[in-house]
């Protein structure tokens, strides 16, 4: 068994691409190995800013031989054809075999292939994997036309203790496979020869490179916690930042710096944004949970007192400059009242065909006022908050730190004397931002958040920018999920279709038809299903209930789904499902038979039932039961009593079964036959008003 060690040493790869690259490399290489029958016991990838490393262990030294059978020309074919075949397969005629097939007698050969040494096979596999690496962004360098994420400097390729023979042609220059690597760019740049992963890992460790990403993360986290703790503080953990920082260092050294007291009066979000975004530093809390005047630096050098002090001083200096800029913005922004900033929104495009941000604000403020009473908010307050909600986008602070949108709006609103719940609504109207972000619960915040999102959704649907496959450039799926989570989380009774229609009227783009409303509603239902996938809610029930009449009240939809689920779990539920299918089967069968003399089957079915043509007791009973249940369901549904509405259809089970036992639908009397089909169709329609049972699977 042999070990393959592969390392691609390049100039610094972007942190955000490293994980993906290591997975892609592993996938490419291992699938190629599998394809030629080289089975291995383990494959591990490692990635640092400068290197992409793959170790495959337990590879055989030789490829297992493959037996391949090939059919040649027909026996008795021309000499030319036979000779051609023999040349091609490298055999003589007495090594071939005659065999009968259904098409006649043919020459056959059996070739034993492969059995090549792994060392001979690997170079091509490695080279083709390199060329197939799917970088999201790649580049050329020098006079070469080869592309990699950044200039590639060497390829270490060692199998079974020996360098593999291989060369990557970059176009102008070439890279020969090597058994050399280098350590840390500054601390140990000299060449090191390695013959195994074990050696490689140890050499790197001695050369200030920690190969394992998780290990670097652990060091950063532990050291940062320790540094905070020993200074009497607590690290503000930030997993996203940790992932990024870990991709910027090969030898993490954690240091702690100070923030000047004069900056501590700014909103903590501003300080954190300045540390995090530009400096990739972690914020630190005091024991009481408020922001401390310290920050955590992750550098890429070994610890040395003078150097550590230089690095800390340098980082403090940069942060000071950033914070004094921020402070300048903080003061300058507050000199202009939020409400006076609305005019400036006319200069900011929302989206090409959907007008400026001022247009958007005008629309969604009206919508927020519409929604307000449905969620227990005052419409005037909602309107007022919405009008201010985007004004912070014109401030200097947001130009510098776009991620603080809303949050700064809140501070500026409070500074301008707005009420707390108005200010909070400004901050929260973007929420929830990610799938794990908290949903707003305050009435005004809810009204704003839903209004803003619905406006965005309807707008992009009208202009045809609808997500397809993996393409969702405007994050409409996330926006839709936000609407769903707010509605369900707050148990809100909101009918969505009228809101869509209102936005359409406000946008007033020619050709914005009502059909986009239904498309959007279907889109939301699809998001709802995917959102609830992890919970034990059956997707077919959601589809079934939604299909019973485009239910646009999500909370009502889900409670109907619950009730339906409970009902289907009972004996009556199971029986009813069977009844429904019997009804449906005969309706479909008769459609295929296309009963004579009728041109439009559905038109025939929609006719009224003629009670004078009901002759058998069982059909009269079913008819009576339908009338009775139908009037009950109407009353129950109008008062949202889904339990009673659903349970009441149980009263149809016996009449339906009795009908099928006693009544022949397919009679030669066409009038009776049509009337019975109408009766069954009415039964189906009544059941459909509870749920489209045809879409529901067995429990």
């Amino acid at each position, binding site marked *: 068994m042999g070990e393959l060690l592969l390392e691609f040493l390049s*100039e*610094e790869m*972007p*942190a*955000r691409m490293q994980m993906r690259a290591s997975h892609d490399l592993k996938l490419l290489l291992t699938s190629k190995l599998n394809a030629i029958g080289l089975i291995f016991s383990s494959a591990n990838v490692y990635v640092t*800013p400068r290197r992409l490393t793959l170790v495959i262990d337990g590879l055989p030294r030789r490829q297992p031989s493959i037996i391949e059978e090939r059919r040649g020309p027909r026996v008795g074919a021309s000499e030319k054809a036979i000779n051609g075949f023999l040349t091609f397969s490298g055999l003589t005629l007495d090594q071939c075999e005659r065999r009968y097939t259904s098409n006649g007698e043919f020459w056959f050969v059996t070739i034993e292939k492969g059995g090549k040494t792994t060392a001979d096979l690997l170079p091509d596999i490695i080279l083709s994997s390199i060329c197939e690496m799917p970088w999201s*962004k*790649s*580049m*050329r*360098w*020098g*006079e*070469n*036309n080869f592309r990699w994420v*950044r*200039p590639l*400097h060497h390829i270490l390729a060692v199998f079974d203790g020996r360098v593999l023979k291989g060369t990557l042609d970059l176009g102008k*220059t070439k890279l020969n496979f090597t058994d050399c690597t280098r350590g840390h760019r*500054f601390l140990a*740049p000299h060449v090191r020869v390695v013959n195994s992963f074990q050696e490689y890992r140890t050499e790197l460790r001695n050369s200030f490179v920690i190969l394992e990403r998780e290990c670097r993360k652990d060091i950063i986290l532990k050291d940062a916690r320790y540094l905070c703790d020993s200074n009497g503080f607590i690290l503000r953990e930030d997993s996203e930042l940790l992932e990024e920082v870990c991709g*910027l260092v090969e030898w993490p050294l954690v240091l702690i710096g100070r923030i000047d007291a004069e900056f501590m009066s700014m909103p903590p979000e501003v300080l954190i944004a300045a540390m995090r975004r530009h*400096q*990739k*530093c972690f914020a630190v809390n005091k024991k009481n949970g408020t922001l401390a005047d310290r920050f955590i*630096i992750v*550098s*890429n*050098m070994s610890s*040395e007192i*003078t*150097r550590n002090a*230089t*690095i800390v*001083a*340098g*980082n403090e*200096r*940069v*942060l*000071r*400059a950033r914070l*004094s*800029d921020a402070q*300048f913005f903080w003061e300058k922004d507050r000199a202009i009242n939020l409400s006076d900033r609305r005019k400036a929104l006319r*200069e*900011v*495009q929302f989206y090409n065909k959907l007008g*400026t941000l001022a247009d958007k604000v005008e629309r969604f403020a009206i919508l927020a006022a519409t929604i307000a009473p449905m969620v227990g908010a005052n419409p005037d307050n909602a309107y007022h908050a919405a009008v201010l909600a985007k004004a912070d986008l014109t401030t200097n602070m947001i130009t510098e730190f776009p991620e603080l949108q809303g949050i700064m709006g809140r501070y500026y609103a409070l500074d301008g004397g707005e009420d707390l719940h108005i200010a909070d609504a400004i901050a929260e109207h973007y929420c929830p931002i990610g799938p794990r972000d908290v949903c707003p619960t305050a009435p005004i915040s809810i009204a704003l958040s839903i209004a803003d999102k619905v406006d965005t959704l309807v707008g992009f649907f009208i202009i045809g920018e609808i997500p397809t496959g993996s393409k969702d450039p405007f994050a409409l799926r996330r926006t839709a999920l936000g609407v769903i989570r707010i509605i369900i989380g707050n148990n809100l009774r909101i009918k969505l279709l009228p809101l869509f229609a209102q936005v359409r009227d406000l946008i007033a783009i020619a050709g914005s038809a009502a059909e986009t409303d239904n498309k959007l509603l279907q889109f939301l239902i699809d998001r709802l299903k995917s959102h609830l996938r992890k919970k034990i809610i059956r997707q077919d029930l959601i589809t079934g209930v939604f299909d019973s009449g485009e239910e646009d009240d999500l909370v009502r939809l889900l409670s109907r789904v619950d009730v339906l689920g409970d009902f289907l779990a009972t004996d009556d539920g199971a029986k009813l499902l069977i009844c429904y299918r019997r009804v449906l089967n005969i309706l479909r069968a008769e459609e295929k038979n296309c009963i004579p003399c009728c041109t439009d089957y559905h038109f025939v079915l929609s006719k009224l039932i003629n009670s004078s043509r009901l002759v058998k007791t069982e059909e009269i009973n079913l008819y009576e039961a339908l009338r009775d249940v139908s009037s009950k369901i109407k009353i129950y549904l109008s008062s949202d009593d889904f339990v009673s509405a659903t349970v009441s259809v149980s009263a149809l089970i016996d009449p339906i079964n009795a009908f099928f036992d006693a009544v022949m639908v397919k009679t030669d009397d066409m009038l009776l036959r049509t009337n019975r089909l109408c009766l069954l169709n009415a039964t189906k329609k009544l059941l459909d008003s509870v749920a489209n049972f045809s879409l529901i699977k067995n429990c």
Partner: protein
Amino acid sequence: MNQEKNMLDSDLGSTVDRVNNHFQGIILTLQSYWASKGCIVLQPYDMEVGAGTLTPFTTLRSLAPDEVWRAVYVQPSRRPTDGRYGESPNRLQHYYQFQVLLKPSPVDSQDLYLGSLSTIGLNPMAHDIRFVEDDWENPTIGAWGLGWEVWCDGMEISQYTYFQQIGGIDCMPISLEISYGLERIAMYLQGKDSIFNLDWNGIPPEEGGKTYGDIYKQAELEFSAYNFKYADIDHLLRRFVDCELDCLNLLKVDLALPAYDQCLKAVHAFNLIDARGVISVNERQSYISRIRKLARACCENWMNNST
């Protein structure tokens, strides 16, 4: 390799800093360093540009005609909207970039660059130097490249870009552009908190030495006023149209270089119009696309007519 060795051999203590860290000293040191690496030392291009990249020394030369073009120059860069009337310690509407263009990009470019840092007193062994992803794109001239911003102890000191496309044309060979933020580096080396306090030439004021502020503070004040208040909008709009027309006419007679100068003048007029805050979003977009057309046409003409 030699470079690497030098870097390692210099010990930590001696790095603070016997080199001349005054502003002109840094420029002189960088110039002679890159000259010793085979670069031609050019003088600033005599036009108003927003960045060193835009001069023909970089934009056009990275396309054609030379197979090898290694050049360095200091380029004054004008960004009218960045004016702060000389009140901000870190922002100017006129500042300097030290520009290096290496075509084709050499395989040991990072070592060469790090070597240059050592010469100006930023020994990589005494600091924390990092290459952090920062891809460059200039849609106005249809150009993009991949690279990094280089950090020294958390501060961005240079932009490092491998050009992939200029004027919408694929580059071949690939040029490497390194752009040093001179003021920032000088502030760090001199430990100054304001650009205006930078020591320009290392001579005490009583002996006639000058600071950055002595030379440029008044200019910042006056040009900020000009950029934001007094630049005549009608004249600028007319100038833009005139330059655009001149550029197109010059291209008709295959004079790519003068045409490109007119394109640069149009860009600067646009930057001033922008600073005056009188153009709407849509107009802005349309100006940018008009400039892009000019820049692309100049690049194409230059490519087609240089051998």
